[in-house]
């Protein structure tokens, strides 16, 4: 059984007003701080601020909120990309971050080489990759071009390969930042079916989306975030109605 527990999670970003400090500035600031407390040329920004919640097996959690509410940062903290500034994240189960597919693709590598490279980055073992290789190629409909460097791929071909690879394994915990699927209409249809299958088989699904209908159809729980804080947490329709009503009223 998978589960996620988040306790008082905060993620702080330091916004630098100039570029990253040079060696000179660093030494200068040491001397300055010896004389008096220096005013740093940065300000802190809490992208996620004291969020606590629990996700249990079977939960289909949608996260909503305005741009910059901290939704994506929260997902990245769940995937361990961002270390919590304070608080704790504990995750049980194999987690699959489908945040930005194709992130690890190397343009000079062929499609097949990228399956192995990106598969390794996604945490698959070599045997696992060998097992899914043909299925991935077939699903992406790239049999002819799989040994061509991906820099010659069209955007659609690139997306198809990335999507097929990222969704080839069934993770316990599925993390989605918007549902992505590129390609032509027939591939979109196939991809959507595969996505739904993946969601059905996952133990926990967490997604961020601005598409309220999509969230209503896929999720059974919503967390509403605003300025890094969890504003509301509850059943889909109730929270979504409140959220949409507030947005209407500005």
């Amino acid at each position, binding site marked *: 059984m998978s589960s996620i527990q988040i306790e008082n999670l905060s993620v702080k970003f330091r916004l630098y007003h100039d570029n990253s400090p040079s060696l000179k500035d660093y030494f200068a600031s040491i001397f300055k701080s010896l004389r008096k407390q220096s005013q740093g040329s940065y300000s802190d920004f809490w992208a996620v601020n004291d969020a606590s919640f629990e996700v249990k097996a079977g939960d289909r959690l949608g996260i909503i909120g305005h741009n910059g509410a901290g939704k994506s940062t929260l997902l990245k903290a769940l995937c361990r990309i961002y270390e919590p500034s304070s608080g704790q994240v504990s995750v049980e189960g194999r987690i699959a971050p489908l945040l930005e597919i194709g992130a690890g693709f*190397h343009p000079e590598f062929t499609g097949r080489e990228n399956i192995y490279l990106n598969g390794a980055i996604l945490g698959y073992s070599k045997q696992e990759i060998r097992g899914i290789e043909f299925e991935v190629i077939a699903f992406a409909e790239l049999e002819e071009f799989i040994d061509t460097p991906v820099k010659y791929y069209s955007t659609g071909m690139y997306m198809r390969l990335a999507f097929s690879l990222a969704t080839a394994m069934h993770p316990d915990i599925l993390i989605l930042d918007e549902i992505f699927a590129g390609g032509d209409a027939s591939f979109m249809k196939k991809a959507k079916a595969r996505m739904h299958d993946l969601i059905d088989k996952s133990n926990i699904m967490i997604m961020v989306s601005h598409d309220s209908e999509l969230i209503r159809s896929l999720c059974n729980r919503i967390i509403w975030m605003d300025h890094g804080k969890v504003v509301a947490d509850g059943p889909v329709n109730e929270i979504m109605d409140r959220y949409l009503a507030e947005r209407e009223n500005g």
Partner: protein
Amino acid sequence: MKSNTFSFLKELYDGRNILSQLVSQQLILRYRRTTLGYLWSLISPLMMMSVMAVVFATLFQKDLKTFAVFLFAGMIPWNFFSSVLTQSGISFINNEGLIKKIYLPKAIFPLSIACALLIDSALAFLALFAIILVLGGSLSWAILFIPVAYVMLFFFSLGLGLIMSITTVFFRDLQYVIAIVMQALFFLTPILYKPSALTGKVAWLIDLNPVVPFIELFRAPLFLGTLPSSNSMMLAALYSVFSMAVGLFVFLRNEKKIVFRL
């Protein structure tokens, strides 16, 4: 700290598949679509060293063959050391896209660089060794010491490489500073000359230079056909343990901060 180091090693072990992918990416990718391919990895250092051998043998009025062997034996460890430090420095900056999108054990990046360079260096060594034999270098049982020398050199360079990889993220200027430092250090390290040749006011620099014993580790078996002095071996072992200890300490304390600073 102990459990920290343990989980760090476990993560690295779990990530060995990514490591091997990154290493082969480094080795293969550079020479995509070139006719000679990987051979460039051997040709360019060999050419560079040959030119240096000719110029400096003439300049110092030394016998070319003897000087070439002397120089090659010193250049092999130096090239490895200096490439690891220079390339580790930008290892996170070059992989920013990946680091911000997916969780990976961060040490994989500098480690993959050190591993790829080790393979490069070992192959260059074999090629140079063949040349040394042709030039009439001495072949002795001492050559069996070379793998041990590589192990020490590897950890010494990796430790400093870990420090470089972290600090360059915080101070981007370092990637340019390191190039200058390496240039200076090259001339302050007895590679073109014997350690005893640098006398006078700067002689103490040789005693302080931690790279010196590593040059000796390679030069003694290849040039003199003897085992390195026990003094050099001990110093090299000490430096490599110290470098790894400090490297891991700095790395483990800061690895989680770098994603916020890329």
